[in-house]
């Protein structure tokens, strides 16, 4: 008799757990579906990243590459967002490029969801949104995912207690989880863990397509030192790489925008700008804007925090001298961050062309920073079916 009560009790607890677990898991499963992209007549073709690494085929990490070929001989520019899925502006800037860009010289490869697996989950303890809605000018609504900066453990687990990436970065202690961070595992490994395969594919893409210039779009929490800033590996293209970046920086300044250019850290092993810059012919750049929803000081988590980028806690922290980076009362709306990413890319292409006229790259279709801000996300993004 006693044994049966025991069984019933356990069964009841299990059933109760399932009542909670099933709806919650449906929430997580919803994140597995990629957002649709609006059609753009200028798009030449869509490839999959697995074309550059066989091992990615059929995995949740395989992702779309949108190729724009102007037909005019010139250089090749690789642009990716979504290295860290929680850094929303990078992904959205790439989507905006895919939906609006018209190349006029050279070729452009654009990847909006680089760590596609990372878009399928969120980070525990941080209370992040899983989705946010953007209302378009025609009244329709587009929903985008906010993911986690790491690959989903469902796709790659467990994290090893020690791992040495191909760049020589040693992952120990709390860094062990970084084995699921695309921007720590470059230049990747064809036979390595899933995340490394993504890195390897990018590495191969740069080599095989003879990419001249690469931009890795990021965001950081407002405590971070290098914000509104581009990291440049001056190794490829030495000594002009930094001059190209400074040219972009001056151009932005003439538009009353800040975008510093900084040398890529020598010990940033495994990061895109360091490892890919050291091992390929491409000039490597990585851009950061700040995203108040990412920092530990963020307040209540809502769509508005992501879209308006207004976080009074950070404004207060800045006023009290706790933040290096200036955070104003008005915040840093997502559209401004997206526009800044795109403007920086546009100027980089222009400055690269000035220094290397034989490898010209240029595009139009998005307008200036101020045009984009005026249009807003609702005008910049196109309606989808």
């Amino acid at each position, binding site marked *: 008799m006693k044994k049966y009560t025991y069984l019933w009790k356990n069964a009841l607890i299990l059933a109760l757990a399932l009542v909670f677990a099933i709806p919650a898991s449906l929430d997580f499963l919803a994140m597995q579906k990629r957002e649709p992209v609006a059609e753009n007549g200028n798009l030449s073709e869509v490839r999959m990243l697995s074309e550059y690494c066989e091992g990615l085929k059929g995995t949740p990490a395989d992702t779309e590459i949108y190729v724009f070929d102007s037909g005019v001989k010139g250089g090749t520019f690789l642009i990716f967002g979504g290295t860290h899925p929680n850094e929303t502006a990078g992904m959205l800037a790439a989507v905006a490029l895919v939906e609006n860009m018209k190349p006029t010289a050279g070729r452009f490869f654009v990847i909006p969801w680089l760590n596609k697996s990372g878009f399928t989950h969120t980070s525990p*303890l*941080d209370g992040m949104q899983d989705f946010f809605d953007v209302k378009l000018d025609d009244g329709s609504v587009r929903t985008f995912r906010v993911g986690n900066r790491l690959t989903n453990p469902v796709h790659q687990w467990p994290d090893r207690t020690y791992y040495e990436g191909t760049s020589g970065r040693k992952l120990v202690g709390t860094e062990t989880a970084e084995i699921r961070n695309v921007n720590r595992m470059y230049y990747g490994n064809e036979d390595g863990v899933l995340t490394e395969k993504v890195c390897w594919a990018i590495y191969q893409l740069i080599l095989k397509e003879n990419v001249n210039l690469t931009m890795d779009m990021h965001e950081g929490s407002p405590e971070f030192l290098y914000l509104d800033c581009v990291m440049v590996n001056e190794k490829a293209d030495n000594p002009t790489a930094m001059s190209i970046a400074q040219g972009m920086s001056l151009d932005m300044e003439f538009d009353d925008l800040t975008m510093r250019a900084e040398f890529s850290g020598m010990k940033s092993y495994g990061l895109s700008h360091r490892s890919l810059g050291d091992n390929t012919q491409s000039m490597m750049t990585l851009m950061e804007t700040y995203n108040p929803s990412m920092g*530990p000081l963020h307040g209540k988590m809502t769509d508005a925090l992501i879209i308006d980028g207004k976080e009074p806690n950070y404004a207060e922290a800045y006023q009290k001298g706790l933040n290096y980076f200036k955070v104003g009362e008005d915040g840093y709306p997502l559209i401004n961050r997206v526009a800044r990413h795109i403007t920086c890319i546009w100027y980089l292409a222009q400055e690269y062309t000035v220094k290397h006229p034989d490898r010209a790259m240029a595009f139009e279709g998005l307008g200036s920073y101020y045009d984009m801000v005026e249009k807003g996300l609702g005008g910049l993004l196109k309606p989808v079916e």
Partner: protein
Amino acid sequence: MDIELICLLVMLAVFLLANLLLKLPVSVSMILGAIAGALTGGQGIPLRHMFEGTFTYLDTVLIISAAMLFMTVIQESGALEALNAAIVTRFYKVPALMLILLMLMIMFPGMITGSSTAAVLSAGALVAPVLMMIGIPKANTGAIVAMGAIMGMAAPPINIPALLIAGGVDMPYISFEGPLFFITIPCAIVAVLILGLKHCKNLDIEKLKGQLNLEIGKKYGFRLYLPILVLIVLLVVSKLVPSLPQLGTALIFLISSAVGLFTGKRFNVWQKALESMETTIPVLGKLMGVGMFIQVLTLVGARGWIVVSCLSLGTVMLYVFACTIMPGFGAISSYGAASVMGVPFLLVLLQTGGNNDIVLCCMLSFLCCLGDLMPPTALAGNYAAQIVGLKYSPVLKKCVIPFLICLIAGLVCMIFSGSLSFLTA
């Protein structure tokens, strides 16, 4: 009153009410607190967030479960008894030295794994019976084990709160050994001597021999110690030769337990494994509840609010808060304390000038580690109490004096961090 503050108060109130008045388990009380907070914060019942929060410490949960099995195995196989007999018969003449050695033994797994729980459950479980045998009362023994585990957790090479804080300000985890040894070793020695020395000044070895099980060691010989040896070798090797294939701490505990099944007394494995899991589930539940609690705290914005508010204090208050809130936060989670409070505290303290960033980071992490003694979770205290067969309140009572000494030592080192710069050279 800010809505975030209201959320926080509601969460704490519901948690305390459920725990103290309704006598619900801590884990369940935390769930109720989380639900109440989410409702107050206008987030409904955020199933996804509650679910996600409970998975934060999945790895820790696995390690603790495996370590519990290991502890059961070495107890039941007789390895513990034999080891006790061996240590006491060798070192009984110099009790102070014996105590310090035993303390270092408790610390060791904590130093390697960075987890106080692992230290309590592995070395702590081995050492506690010895301490009791030489005449140290149960409560003091529990306190020694708990303090040792915490010192081990804070000691280099792996100090997870320090790693979390350093990671948060983009500081490489280099040169942390000096300051961390500087604070942990003396504190550990002082703690063990205060708690233990007066009880074991005059040891009567003949009387002790009566209590020791000298037979079992003779019967099985050296193979009795194999599981412990396997554990130490695997743990050390995996850290020293990291290029070898990695087993992971949980698997290492399981392998060592499996070895133990064949090296000593036979026992009903299934029954004992069930028993050990039953004792450990409340703590696992606490960890999951903590995860949910902090996730909701973050979701409704209360975490950001706490941090911003604390950072608006003057320097003196800041030090006072570092000494109270940081370990106090450990009641919820010491890792949480490091990541939520540690990073901003360090940033502000650095701005006051004349401080050494590494020393400050080490001392803040040390204060976070002390939080593992804070009820209601009190991870270290909880398991230490279980090992000596007591509830955790008498054990924690004994920890108060060494705890305060550690707190003051940490504070002094923080204030004079500039003069301690030589430790980081």
